[in-house]
């Protein structure tokens, strides 16, 4: 192996990551739970102004913590199930986010149902649309699946734009907020009387913090569920499909069913975020669901290290936060964002925090990513191999 200083630095960083990971694995359960609790407390304290003044001097920190940062994190966790765990390249993830958003907007304005009921309905709808999309397309592999999902994302957006019954290009306005605690009636008792004038978690227009807390709650639930799935038979089946679909099938993994499950779960997570986001933003329109959002979320997943949950969350945070942090540069931020994506992929194609498995695959030169990986390694790799023989 050629070891220039940069490569040495990278290997060193990787080794450090491994050491930390080993230590983490050997810590007793109760200590890990303390760390988890601390992380949640940190997440809840994040919107404070003292952190915000550094993190986003140009915009309201609590607002951008909800959107884009928090929203991207949850979406990336959802997409990670599909791309990182099951190895299915989905370029139209935004479609499910849109289905969730429109479910909230339509049911909320037309039928006036409660937010929590709509959340359940939205999740179910998204799981169903994931299955509907998956049933015909999941027999395709790699790039074909990518382009079909991209097409599906565009179909959803253009259909929303062309259908006047759901607002056409103007979208839907006046989406209701989630019920505040003060509005609740528990066993016929009006909660606002009990609280005596204080208004905790009031879901209004001005204060983004209650929505952020709700988002943290959603994220925690999603992370727990996804982690449990990853460690279960389902997760192992996904890994098998990702690494070699034919081998998995031969070993008796019902690959098609597990791929559908990954799609449905990813879609539900995207949809739940769509519901929550629509409940905060009052109005939505088809332009909120551009392909660029799908691409950005995918970039977050890959950049963070597909398949590794903390990595994916870090990637989403970076992708969402960088353009906001550099709002001072105004219009140049997307230009810089594009250049940063290219640079990151050149210098760290395995992502910021890759899983150990992925790094091993990369070293092996097989390209990794199972069905997404090149069947044929890059011609240059061939050239070198042949030259050295």
């Amino acid at each position: 192996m050629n070891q220039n200083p940069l490569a040495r630095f990278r290997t060193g960083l990787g080794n450090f990551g491994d050491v930390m990971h080993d230590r983490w694995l050997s810590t007793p359960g109760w200590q890990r739970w303390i760390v988890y609790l601390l992380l949640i407390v940190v997440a809840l304290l994040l919107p404070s102004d003292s952190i915000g003044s550094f993190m986003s001097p140009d915009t309201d920190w609590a607002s951008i913590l909800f959107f884009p940062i928090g929203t991207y994190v949850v979406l990336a966790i959802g997409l990670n199930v599909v791309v990182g765990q099951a190895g299915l390249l989905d370029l139209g993830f935004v479609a499910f986010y849109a289905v969730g958003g429109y479910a909230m907007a339509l049911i909320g304005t037309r039928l006036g149902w409660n937010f929590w009921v709509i959340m359940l309905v939205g999740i179910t709808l998204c799981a169903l649309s994931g299955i509907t999309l998956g049933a015909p397309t999941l027999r395709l592999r790699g790039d074909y699946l990518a382009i079909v999902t991209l097409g599906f994302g565009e179909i959803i957006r253009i259909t929303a734009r062309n259908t006047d019954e759901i607002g056409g290009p103007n979208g839907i306005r006046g989406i209701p907020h989630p019920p505040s605690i003060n509005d609740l009636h528990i066993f016929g008792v009006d909660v606002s009387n009990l609280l005596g004038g204080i208004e905790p978690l009031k879901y209004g227009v001005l204060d983004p913090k209650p929505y952020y807390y709700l988002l943290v709650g959603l994220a925690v639930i999603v992370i727990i569920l996804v982690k449990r799935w990853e460690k279960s038979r389902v997760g192992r089946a996904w890994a098998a499909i990702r690494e070699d679909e034919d081998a998995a099938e031969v070993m008796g993994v019902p690959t098609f069913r597990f791929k559908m499950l990954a799609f449905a779960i990813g879609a539900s997570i995207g949809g739940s975020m769509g519901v929550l986001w629509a409940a905060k933003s009052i109005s939505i329109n088809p332009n909120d669901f551009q392909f660029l959002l799908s691409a950005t979320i995918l970039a977050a997943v890959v950049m963070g290290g597909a398949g590794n949950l903390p990595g994916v969350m870090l990637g989403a945070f970076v992708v969402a936060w960088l353009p906001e942090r550099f709002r001072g540069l105004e219009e140049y931020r997307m230009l810089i964002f594009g250049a940063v994506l290219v640079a990151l992929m050149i210098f760290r194609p395995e992502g910021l925090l890759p899983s150990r498995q992925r790094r091993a695959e990369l070293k092996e030169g097989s390209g990794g990513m199972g069905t997404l990986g090149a069947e044929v390694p890059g011609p240059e790799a061939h050239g070198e191999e042949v030259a050295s023989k």
Partner: protein
Amino acid sequence: MLNDFVNQFWPATIDGLAFGSIYALIALGYTMVYGVLRLINFAHSEVFMIGTFGAMFVPFVLGISSPLTGIALVGIIVAMILAGMVASAGTAMALERIAYRPLRSRGASRLAALISAIGASIFLQELFALLIIPKVFNRPQQGRIPMALPRLMERTELFSIFGHSVRVDQVLVIVAAIGMMVALDALVNRTKVGRGIRATAQNPEAAVLMGVDINKIVRMTFLIGGGMAGVAGALYLISYENTNYFIGFLFGIKAFTAAVLGGIGNLRGALVGGITLGLVENYGAIFFGSDWKHVISFSILVLVLMFRPTGILGESLQQARA
């Protein structure tokens, strides 16, 4: 409904052929790069966008703002096509050098290459919206507003089919596109470089052993694919007379759809797929309205992939015979 279809059949056919030719030319770039590297060159849409601006540059520099005739018209059209080719081919090669080769030499996943391409795509769009259009084309603060080409060619009727006129610009697009296709087909099937491209697509390892310089072949692939996208950009601009920094996106998806439709990796498939897509979406627009044009083409794509995942022709670059 049926009446509409009968009335609009010929205009839709002509439009479909013109759009289809442009899709086909762009699709060539996708299909060639895919055939050789097994990679979706996602930034190819921006290569097309830059082609339209490269062509725009010629009348802009010459300060032409009224229709031309005779030799001057032919000269300017040739110059625009050449400028589009140079701009696009240059962009494509720069993309290969900067965004893909470092990843390739490290054996990174195709997913990483995809993200790199998306990053490059965003970068190029913003570069045009923020710097090139305002500075080079001297339109400060208007980088995101569509830019119109002054009319260069009178839209005279060349001939008519069943009472529906066919304009000279439409014929130009179709004829030029088919001419380029024939030339490319000859290049790939009859020259040494073409043989290298086919060999690499078939088996890179064996190609190296047979003395093919793979890096050169990859560069040539991007050069040729980029050049074709540049021709498409110039033809689109001449015929539809406007462009913008975001124009590549939709054309890119459509062209990729066309490539998949015809059988990705297959050069003749790109032509068949492009024309088919152009025709189908224009016929569909008669029935469902032009708002649904894009939905129609994506639905067709999904259907084709379900029932014939290898595309219409299916045969790939690897098996293309000499």
